């Protein structure tokens, strides 16, 4: 049932390379598209291609190919992202969008560990993202700490504040635990809004990043071409997203990932076989908030300015919808989902407020036809080649 020989590709490397080429080229076209007809045509093309790919089991084939050659798949994904960054090296707007997609994906990787693996729904993702950003604003403006250390400290701040929530989250279950996180998200925003030290509703400025004596905000010239300073940030976001992705994948394919899955699916059986339920939920919650905090830290430095309105409850919902749309528990589904959720509304500017209607309809349609998300989570294989028996 789980193995469909017809969709197993004969030359996985070639298939992966082709898929990367097609997707990168499409994204390049899509990010370029300015006119109504252009965007509409590309959307129609994507829908048709999506339907055809589903019919021909192309998506499944690419997935299997990716599982066979995981190293190559990751290298190609990074190469595709680098190509896009290079292609848009002059465009502030597009690069900022790429940064946002990558950093939201990073935060959503954290939510995947919490919700997808351990079953702890966190409706305050944007709040933890915000804690990271605010911690960075305070630390970078008031201390001379190296910025790389500030990144880590900001993540730790999010994890630490999150640990205050652990007791109520562990004492409640399911919907009730979700309510606790909703309350916290609202609390966070209100607290920032009324707190004058943190800038109140006007927000705070965040200094740009300095890495090993190099100011990322300066921008640079490469081979005679002016490169937007956002390109450096896009590279940094890509490195962060890639690193966290590798960690989350390793986590999924370890005893810890297994323990989290068992805790999520059956707490009684888990306890009977010695698993400490609270321990794994705490590990997942703290780790997820750390990732969200680090992502928020970089986001703050990129935008240079943060305000309570950047980290609202709707933003948290946006993050969770990326997690669910991508396929709950599947790290690889987050990136396409983040592109749809974050980039599409920007590209639909021309229909003004109707864009949210169209975009919402699209998300519902996707979940109607793919109820488990764009790329549903597959059964765990600890290593891509199982040992010989």
């Amino acid at each position, binding site marked *: 049932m789980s193995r469909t020989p017809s969709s197993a590709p004969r030359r996985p490397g070639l298939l992966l390379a082709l898929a990367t080429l097609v997707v990168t080229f499409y994204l390049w076209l899509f990010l370029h598209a300015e006119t109504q007809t252009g965007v509409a045509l590309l959307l129609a093309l994507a829908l048709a291609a999506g339907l055809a790919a589903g019919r021909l089991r192309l998506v499944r084939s690419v997935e299997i190919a990716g599982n066979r050659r995981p190293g190559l798949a990751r290298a190609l994904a990074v190469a595709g992202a680098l190509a896009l960054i290079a292609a848009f090296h002059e465009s502030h707007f597009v690069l900022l969008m790429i940064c946002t997609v990558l950093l939201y994906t990073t935060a959503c990787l954290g939510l995947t560990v919490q919700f997808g693996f351990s079953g702890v729904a966190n409706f305050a993702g944007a709040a933890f993202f915000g804690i990271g950003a605010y911690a960075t604003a305070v630390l970078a403006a008031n201390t001379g700490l190296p910025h790389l250390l500030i990144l880590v400290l900001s993540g730790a701040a999010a994890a630490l504040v999150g640990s205050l929530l652990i007791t109520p989250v562990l004492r409640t279950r399911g919907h009730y635990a979700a309510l606790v996180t909703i309350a916290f998200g609202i609390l966070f925003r209100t607290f920032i809004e009324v707190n004058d030290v943190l800038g109140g509703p006007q927000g705070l400025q965040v200094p740009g990043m300095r890495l090993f004596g190099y100011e990322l905000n300066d921008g640079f010239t490469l081979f005679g071409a002016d490169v937007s300073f956002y390109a450096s940030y896009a590279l940094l976001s890509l490195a962060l997203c890639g690193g966290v992705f590798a960690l989350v994948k*390793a986590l999924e394919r370890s*005893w*810890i990932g297994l323990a989290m899955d068992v805790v999520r699916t059956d707490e009684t*059986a888990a*306890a*009977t*076989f*010695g698993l400490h339920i609270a321990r794994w939920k705490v590990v997942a919650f703290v780790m997820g908030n750390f990732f969200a905090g680090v992502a928020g830290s970089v986001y703050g430095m990129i935008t240079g300015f943060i305000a309570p309105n950047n980290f609202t409850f709707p933003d948290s919902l946006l993050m969770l919808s990326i997690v669910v749309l991508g396929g709950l528990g599947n790290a690889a589904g987050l990136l396409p989902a983040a592109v749809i959720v974050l980039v599409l509304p920007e590209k639909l500017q021309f229909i003004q407020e109707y864009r949210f209607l169209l975009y919402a309809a699209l998300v519902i349609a996707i979940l109607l036809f793919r109820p488990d998300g764009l790329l549903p989570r597959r059964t765990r294989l600890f290593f891509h080649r*199982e*040992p010989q028996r």
Partner: protein
Amino acid sequence: MSATVLVDVRGLTMRFGGLTALDALDLQIRPGEVLGLLGPNGSGKTTFFNVLTGLYKATSGSIAYDGQEVVGRTPQDIYRAGVARTFQRSRLSLPLTVFDNIVIGDYQHMRHGLVFNLLRRRAFRAEYERYVEKVVELLRIFSPPLVDRLFEPVAAFSMIDRRRIEVCRALLSRPRLLLLDEPSAGMTHEETHELMSDILDVRERLPGLTVVLIEHEMNVIERITQRCVVLNYGKKIAEGSYAEITADPQVQTAYLGEAE
């Protein structure tokens, strides 16, 4: 004392509100025996398992396991002391593979460190491969056809295979006491027969293992238990060999109702 009695239950009472599920139960389990636990529905058999494995905390009374008090300890502690069980209604993680579901049975010996699991992937892989061998070895004994389907999700398997997977999960950590909660529930006659051979196999290969079996199928009880205890309304009403308990008038009344 631990040489003659592995589990010593004294005056065990479990109340849920107004309902008394276990009523001052006295019971001994001897090391190495296969004990059948019988009784009509609702007589407290599964409740006894749940108290013994720490899922419920007894209202009063005591359970000494290998001389140590068990009442009040967590399920995790009791598992570490060597008690493993199966459940009446299968409690496997359906989206996970056969391997995942069985290997979690030896959770206590896995390394749980973050650094080991996330960063030292070579070392992790070596441990993982040892576990694959261990699981395959167990499956070859009890359920060879499952070896080739090790990495398929449990959701794709029939009831009897799921039961076998549950038994393997319970056996993987080499427990001293194995609790089987109605393993034949929901199975055909042939499947029940197969499962019984499996359990007898377990007994032969692991001679030191003590087994407590909750079961309704009388021929199963007759074939594999050495001693039986019959419960009714949370009390022990009979104890002895299969022949003794089936001849007991109290047992006949509990199962068939009052004679005219």
